[in-house]
C-alpha cells in the first residue's frame, strides 16, 4: 500500500501537474480575496452580497473563515481537473497496462492513487487557505482594514481549512472516479461541467435537495456551510457520496478490461 502510494505520488508530482495546479490555486485564491476587498471598497459596498458587504464588515473575527471558503468552487474545479488528468494520463499513455501486470491486485493500485490524490487535495486546500489568509492581510493593509480582531478568528479559520480540505478530497475522488469511468480527460471534464448544470436544474426544480447532491454537498462542506446550505446534512451526504464513489471506482477498476 505504501509502495502504491509512493508510485502514484511520483506521478502526481510531475511538473506538468504540480506547477499549473499550484499556480491556479494561488492565483485564484489571491484574486478572490482581492475581488472581495475591491468590491467592498466600492461606494455602497459589494453588490454581490445581500446586504452589501462594506470594508468595515471585513474587520470582524469571522472574516478569515470567509476568506478561506471564498475560492472553493475554483479550487474544487482545479482539483477535480487535476485528478481527472492524473487518472486519464495513466490510461492514455498506456502506463496502466504495465502497472496492472506488475501489480495484478488492482485494488492496491486504486488505494495508492486514492491516497495520493487525497494527500494532494489536502495540500491544495492548505496552500489555498494560506494564500487566502495571507492575501487577506495584504489587502487589509492596502485598504486600511483593522485586522486586530482577526487573531481571535484563527481557530475558526483552522476549522474552515479542515472543511476545505475535506471538500477538496471529495472533489478529487469524484473526479478520479469519473476519469476511471470514461478514461478520457476531455469526456470526463465535459461530463463534470454538464453535470454541474444538470445539478443546478435539479436544485431549481427541487430545492429541498440542495446541499445533498455531489457538487452542492462538497461545496457546502468546503465553505463550512457559508454558502447558505445546512452543514451537517451536507457533511453526511459528502461522506456517503465519497464512499459510494470509492466503491464504484473499485468495481470499475477490478472488473473492467484494459483494452485501449
Amino acid at each position, binding site marked *: 500500500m505504501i509502495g502504491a502510494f509512493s*508510485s502514484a505520488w511520483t506521478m502526481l508530482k510531475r511538473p506538468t501537474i504540480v506547477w499549473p495546479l499550484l499556480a491556479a490555486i494561488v492565483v485564484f485564491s489571491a484574486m478572490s480575496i482581492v475581488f472581495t476587498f475591491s468590491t467592498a471598497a466600492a461606494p455602497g459596498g459589494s453588490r454581490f452580497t445581500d446586504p452589501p458587504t462594506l470594508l468595515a464588515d471585513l474587520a470582524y473575527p469571522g472574516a478569515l473563515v470567509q476568506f478561506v471558503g471564498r475560492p472553493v468552487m475554483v479550487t474544487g474545479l482545479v482539483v477535480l481537473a487535476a485528478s481527472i488528468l492524473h487518472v486519464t494520463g495513466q490510461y492514455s499513455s*498506456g*502506463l496502466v497496462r504495465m502497472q496492472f501486470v506488475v*501489480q495484478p491486485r488492482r485494488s492496491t493500485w486504486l488505494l495508492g492513487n486514492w491516497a495520493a490524490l487525497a494527500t494532494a487535495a489536502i495540500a491544495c486546500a492548505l496552500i489555498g487557505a494560506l494564500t487566502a489568509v495571507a492575501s487577506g492581510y495584504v489587502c487589509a493593509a492596502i485598504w486600511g482594514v483593522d485586522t486586530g480582531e482577526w487573531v481571535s478568528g484563527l481557530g475558526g479559520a483552522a476549522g474552515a481549512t479542515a472543511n476545505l480540505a475535506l471538500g477538496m478530497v471529495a472533489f478529487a475522488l469524484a473526479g478520479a472516479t469519473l476519469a476511471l*469511468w470514461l478514461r478520457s480527460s476531455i469526456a470526463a471534464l465535459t461530463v463534470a461541467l454538464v*453535470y454541474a448544470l444538470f445539478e443546478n436544474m435539479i436544485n431549481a426544480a427541487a430545492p429541498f435537495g440542495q446541499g445533498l447532491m455531489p457538487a452542492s454537498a462538497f461545496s457546502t462542506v468546503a465553505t463550512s456551510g457559508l454558502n447558505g446550505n445546512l452543514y451537517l446534512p451536507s457533511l453526511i451526504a459528502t461522506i456517503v457520496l465519497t464512499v459510494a464513489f470509492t466503491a464504484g471506482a473499485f468495481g470499475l477498476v477490478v472488473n*473492467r478490461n484494459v*483494452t485501449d
Partner: protein
Amino acid sequence: MKLNRSPAMIVLRVLSALELISLAVILTNRFTVHLPVVTSTGGPLHGLFYVSTILLALFLPLPRASKWLAAVPGVGGVLALWRAHRHTPAPADEPPSALDLTDEQRRQAIVIADRVTATLSSDTRIGPLSFAVPRGTITGLVGPNGAGKTTALRLLCALVAPSSGSILTAGDPSGAAARMGVLIDSPGLLPSLTARDNLLVLTRLAGWEPAVVDQALERVEMTSAGHRSVGTFSLGMKQRIGLAAALLADPDIVILDEPTNGLDPRGKADLRVFLRELSAEGKTVILATHALDEVDELCDHLIAMDRGRVIFQGRPAQMRRVIPETVLCRAAGPSERDAAAAAFVDAGYEVALDRDAIRVTADTGHGAVLNRLAQKAGVTLTEITAERPTLEQAFLHLTSTPATPDTHDRAGSEEEDVEVPA
C-alpha cells in the same frame, strides 16, 4: 448478451420510455388543452429524463453510435436501445475441442490457453482460443490486422478477463505462477517524467527494490539517459525504456506486441540480438508481429491467428509445409519438357507446366530422382531448383481459407509432420 438483462439497461429502458412519454404529454398539452401545470412541470421533468438518458447511455458499454443517438431529443433513448439491440453480437459458435496436448508438451508449456473466449466492450468477440507456448522459446504470434493478436496478449497478462475458458502460466515445474513483463502497443511511459521515474512508478507499485531500476536501465544500455525526460527521447529510446520496464521483474515470460514498429534497421537488428539473448537466458518470449521475415529468423514456435481464432501452431518449418514443396525443372525445349513431364507423371509425381519449365510437387530432396527419371526418358534437364515455400506464402494460404471450427487448431507436433488437412 448479459448487458440486456443488467439493472442499468432496465433503468435505461425506463428512462427512455419516460423521456418519450413526457415529450408526448408536453406536445399533446401544447396542441390541445394547454394545462399550465403540465407546461410548468413537464418541461423540467422531460429535461431531467433527457439528460439522465444521455448520461446513462454514455456510461453503459453500448456501441459508440448508440451513445451518440441517445442525444437525439425526445426519442434518443429509444433510438440508442434499438441500435444497441441490432448490433448485439450473435452467440459464439460451438467451441471446438480443446487442444490435445501430450504430456510432454504440457510439461514443456509455460502458457496453456484452453478454450478461451473474450467479449470486449466494443462488442468484439474472440475465441475460442486454445494454444500452448513452449517454455524457453521465442514464440511468434502472427495474424492479419484485427485477427485478435493484441487481445490474446492482453488475455495472457490478465488485462482482459476471459468470458470462458482458462489460461495457465507456470513459472517453474512446481506450478508457481510465471512472472511476466509486457510491452503491448507503444511503451506506456509518462513523457514528463524521467526514464528512471517512469520505471520507479512500476517498481514502487510492485513493491520491488529500487535497485532493479538501475539494473534494467543498464540491461538496455540506457543508464546515461535515465535522468532525462521521456518526452525528449526518440522512438527507439522509448522502446528501450519500454523493454527495461518489461524486464524489471526478471520475468519468466516477456510479451512484446509489435516491438519493431517504427524502429530503424539498426534498432530492429539490435532488438533481434536482444531477444536472442533473452531466449538464451531461458526466458520465454512471446512476440506479436506482422513481420513474417522476423518470425522466420527469430522464432522457434509460432501461433497464427485469423478472425479471432488460432489457425495454426507449431514450428515455422511445419507451417511452411502447409504448402507442398516443389522442384522446378527446365529442359532445352518444349519437346524435351513434355517428355520429362510424362516421365515424372508415370513415376507418380504431380506436375504443372509453366512455359519451358515443369513444376513438380515433391520434397526438395527429390531433385536427384527427377534428374534420373529425365535421363531415362532421354532428356537432359538444364536446371533443377528446389522451391521451398516461404512463411508468407504459407500464412497467406492459411488465411485465405475461412476460419471455421474445421480449420481451428491446426497443430503440428515435434515428432510428426504437420497435421493440416490438404
